[in-house]
């Protein structure tokens, strides 16, 4: 076998290797090795920017050296150290420049920031959008997230702590969602999601809240159970056996 070295590998393979290297190593080390690797890094368009991980010197290099149109994955977090504060990011980063984004995550960002950020997302085909809320979601933010879902053709949407209980804001009907995770919805909200999401294959929820006559019954059994827990005496196996033998 002849000698195989890094510079004999095709550029596609080198890009696959870069997929597994952190951004600052790519732009501050790999890029500086030789002309060929410089060119390889320059043609690379799957940068993964996780702003929760950068030091301030990383940030400077990134803002200077990376074209945002070559970023495929972006993570912004509202709970960062002061130097990586989201305000700093927003000052230096124009979200609209991330035109080829495939994956976008917002962790515990304040609602006004979500609004500001989400309406500038211009990507046409987001494989995945993750928003972990920091505050209660109001109608305005919900609408702006919903319009972003349609505009960017999101396929996987994670709104892990979002409750879709207010169906005044209609679920977007032109969406391309295949995978959806939310916390809780009403029965009406559940129906609206199913009716309007024609590509949906996977739905993950904590619970669905049924708001009809049965709701009272649920509340009643929960209350009964709490009192049973306190007493720890009454629910006997024989009650159960009766129930099993003579089902209601």
């Amino acid at each position, binding site marked *: 076998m002849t000698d195989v070295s890094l510079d004999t590998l095709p550029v596609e393979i080198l890009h696959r290797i870069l997929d597994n290297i952190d951004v600052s190593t790519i732009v501050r080390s790999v890029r500086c090795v030789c002309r060929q690797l410089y060119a390889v890094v320059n043609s690379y368009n799957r940068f993964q920017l996780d702003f929760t991980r950068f030091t301030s010197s990383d940030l400077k290099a990134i803002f200077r050296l990376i074209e945002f149109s070559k970023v495929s994955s972006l993570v912004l977090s509202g709970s960062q150290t002061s130097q990586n504060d989201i305000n700093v990011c927003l000052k230096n980063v124009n979200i609209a420049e991330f035109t080829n984004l495939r994956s976008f995550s917002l962790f515990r960002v304040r609602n006004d920031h979500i609004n500001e950020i989400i309406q500038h997302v211009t990507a046409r085909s987001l494989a995945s959008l993750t928003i972990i809320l920091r505050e209660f979601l109001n109608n305005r933010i919900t609408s702006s997230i919903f319009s972003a879902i349609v505009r960017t053709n999101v396929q996987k949407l994670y709104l892990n702590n979002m409750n879709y209980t207010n169906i005044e804001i209609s679920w977007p009907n032109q969406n391309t969602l295949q995978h959806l995770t939310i916390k809780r919805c009403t*029965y009406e909200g559940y129906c609206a999601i199913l009716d309007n999401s024609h590509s949906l294959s996977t739905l993950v929820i*904590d619970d669905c809240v049924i708001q009809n006559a049965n709701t009272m019954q649920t509340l009643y059994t929960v209350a009964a159970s709490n009192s049973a827990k306190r007493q720890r005496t009454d629910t006997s196996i024989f009650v159960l056996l009766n129930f099993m033998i003579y089902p209601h």
Partner: protein
Amino acid sequence: MVSLTINNCHMLMEDLQQLLQLTPSLIHLKLVSDRPTLDRMFVGSDWEQFILNHLRSLNKFQFFLTCDTIVFNGETIFNYLISPFQSRFWLNEKQWLVTCDYVPRSSTFRIYTLPACRSVEIRWHLFRVSATDSKCRFILRPTLFDTELQRSSSNLDVSNCNIRDDVLQYVVEAILNYKVTYFFK
């Protein structure tokens, strides 16, 4: 839609069934629920009938149901609950294995498909039923008895064990009455 996960279900069985009828094409269903009482959701024959009637494509059903208001009076409870899950439908056609256990310490009864879709770490001694033969095992936590005591169960000294009297009663009864006793190392 082919896959639905409900991680903390508070719905009544009737409401859940109503909800599931909206998606007859489901292939995968995962259901985790802490129930206030041993209600219809624990009834295997109900599930079997519902799946046969409304979820004909379902081929992966994972559930984990718990109820912590039960006072355990013997293993009869297991037979009544688990036997509907051991029909041809569950074991042969679908090959969904269901087991259940009871933790006296927290009065928690759990019934779930295997492999368990929620962590089932053994913190306390518990009664557990085999998924296929309905045999009940009593599983003891080793911290309770040192190895010496395990060897000579005729001389069980539990005076130093940090254990509630009512739980201790189960432990002693279990050792006396159950042929198969596992000691976890």
